[in-house]
């Protein structure tokens, strides 16, 4: 009995250590801490089918994810912290839908931040894209980041958070041992574009130029590995994220980054409406002016123009 207790105590202690490690900065004494990630994936109420399908796609891609039911509140997001703790998750991916059309995705490292809020656009789920690619469910993806991710501090934070969320940790419970897909994260136009490709190894085609040379070099190093070439086939989903804000804590704390280039979709829509309305207003003004001009001439209500100078034909020849 005592032995059982001892072993249990040990494991629980180790778990605690992991969590503590997360909290502390820097590396632990062993050099690299264990990459232990669990992601709580959930949405708010009022998501559209497309948002839901995207969430399902992402959940299918992440064997270390834990999908939960819709979260009821949009204002008390700090409650998510408790929820994540309940499920033993140290990451939260929260889909917040507004007005049944706009999707905001929150990425948060749970115990103590940071939190990033993104606006998601151009959502295309796996199903609707009809791509030919396919991969093992739960295989570990290669995460390919754009070089731009290393330039700015906020992008570096985003990269780190993506690594935790989308990268399947080594030895995750339902992960598969082979690597057959790559996720691409690129920064363009101030947005982050996310793509997912299958890696298909095909017989090598001769005469590819510099790529070939590189390959040959590698072949010398890696032995028989490079008899095949790699071609990528897209799997899906596709989406584009615009970072809006970053908070220091998990769903709280001071804001440490705000994107000034982000324009709220509400604002965009209102501008559109206004520009449309301006046409109507202009027309209205014109009719009013017309009426006023007519009234000035005494032509109101279809009256015939009356010459007051007394030179009207009807008066002259009456």
């Amino acid at each position, binding site marked *: 009995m005592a032995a059982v207790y001892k072993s249990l105590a040990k494991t629980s202690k180790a778990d605690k250590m992991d969590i503590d490690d997360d909290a502390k900065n820097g590396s632990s004494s062993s050099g690299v801490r264990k990459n232990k990630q669990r992601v709580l994936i959930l949405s708010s109420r009022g998501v559209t089918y497309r948002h839901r399908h995207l969430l399902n796609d992402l959940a299918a891609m992440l064997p270390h994810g834990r999908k939960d039911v819709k979260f009821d509140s949009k204002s008390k997001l700090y409650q998510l912290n408790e929820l994540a703790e309940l499920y033993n998750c140290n990451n939260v991916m929260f889909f917040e839908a507004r007005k049944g059309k706009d999707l905001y995705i929150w990425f948060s490292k749970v115990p103590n931040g940071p939190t990033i809020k993104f606006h998601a656009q151009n959502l295309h789920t796996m199903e609707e894209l009809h791509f030919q690619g396919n991969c093992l469910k739960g295989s570990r993806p290669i995460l390919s980041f754009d070089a731009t991710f290393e330039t700015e501090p906020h992008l570096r934070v985003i990269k*780190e958070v993506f690594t935790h969320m989308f990268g399947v940790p080594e030895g995750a419970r339902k992960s*598969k041992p082979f690597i057959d897909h790559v996720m691409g994260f690129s920064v363009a136009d101030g947005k982050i574009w996310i793509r997912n490709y299958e890696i298909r190894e095909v017989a090598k085609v001769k005469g590819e130029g510099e790529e070939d040379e590189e390959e040959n070099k590698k072949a010398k190093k890696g032995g028989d*590995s490079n008899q095949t070439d790699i071609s990528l086939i897209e799997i899906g989903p596709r989406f584009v994220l615009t970072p809006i804000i970053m908070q220091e804590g998990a769903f709280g704390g001071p804001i440490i980054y705000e994107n000034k280039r982000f324009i709220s979709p509400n604002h965009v829509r209102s501008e559109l409406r206004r520009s449309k309305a301006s046409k109507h207003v202009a027309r209205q003004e014109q009719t009013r002016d017309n009426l006023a001009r007519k009234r000035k001439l005494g032509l109101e209500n279809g009256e015939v123009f009356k010459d007051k100078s007394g030179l009207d034909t009807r008066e002259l020849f009456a």
Partner: protein
Amino acid sequence: MAKKGAKLTAKAPIANKQSNRVTDKKQKVDKRKSNDPPVEADEEEWEDEDSEEDSEDESADEEGGVDFSKLEDINDSDSDSEINSDDDEDEQEEEEAESDDSEGEESEIDVDGLDLDGLDPEEKEELAATTRVRQTINNKDALLASLKRISLLPLDSNNSKKSAPIPFSYHMTLVSSAPTESAIPSIDDDLERELAFLNQAREAALRARSLLKKEGVPFTRPTDYFAETLRSDETMQQVKQKMIEVATAKKASAEARKQRDLKKFGKQVQVQKQQERAKEKRATLEKINDLKRKRKDGGSASLGAREADDMFDVAVDNELGNTTKPGGKRGRSAGDHGPPNAKRQKKNEKYGFGGKKKFGKSGDAMSSGDMSGFNAKRMKHGGGAGDGKKAFSAGAGGKPKGSKPRVGKDRRKAQAGRR
């Protein structure tokens, strides 16, 4: 925060010169307040203050310039606190200092900092509307601190050098060699953009494969390894079906187009072919005629040769007559075609061929003057007029009653012998 920014910008064009300034100032002060409490509380606060704003605007109308100077004071105090707090080691304090720091950056884009007094109020409003009076926060220190807190890999290069290198399979992340955006000529060009993304991913995949092979991590899935895939077989079947559909549709449309084109040019092709055939025929005919002439000229030396020539000529003529239809005109003009065939003859007999057909059976002077069928002897014997045939047929029915039936042949001979 985003919410607040949007609200304020929406308000900016409406507010007049003074109130504009005041709201900006307020924004600043509010920011200072709001740095510490979490966002949720923030938003409520903002809403409250928006409602207050109107009343403050009115009071600010009288104050005017005083506000402006106050504002500068606040800016100054900001920088002061920054300096002071930088020295502190306390983390909490540091955070505040950082947030102050960010405010220092904000002042760069503040409209108030510009010299606007010289402008008309209208112009100023326009300027306020076009310049997004949006507070930006980019607290780099805080960002780096939080990055350090969560990063899987040690950030300082010194540290990593000391300890063993971290295997690639631990994190599986790769950073591309060049920024992808530089490879995209236009963000709206879907094809180019996707190609750039694909190239980035491909580069990473190639590098990752060599790295993983080096580390001895299995990469390629063996063909006999079956497991659940990300997309179900059903979906893949659908995708395949869709592809086949698209391919067949493409093929069909191509075929249809081809057919259409053929139809368009078919007539021309036909005419051309006919012309070609006629040309060929003419050529062969000419050749044959040439040959004939040559034979005639060259073969008159001896009689035997001439005979042979004649025979040859007949053969050639026959050939011409059989083969050439366009040459038929010549043949007809020569008048060497034989009688019409049997069927034609019959038909000519039956229906007539050429000449006037009307009144063909009616009597005229010629027919009434024709006495060829009249025989006086027959008239004497009685019976019908006409030839024997007629008499015979009439005799069957209407013989004179007095005449005896004809006797047999032998008796008639004997009678003739007695006479």
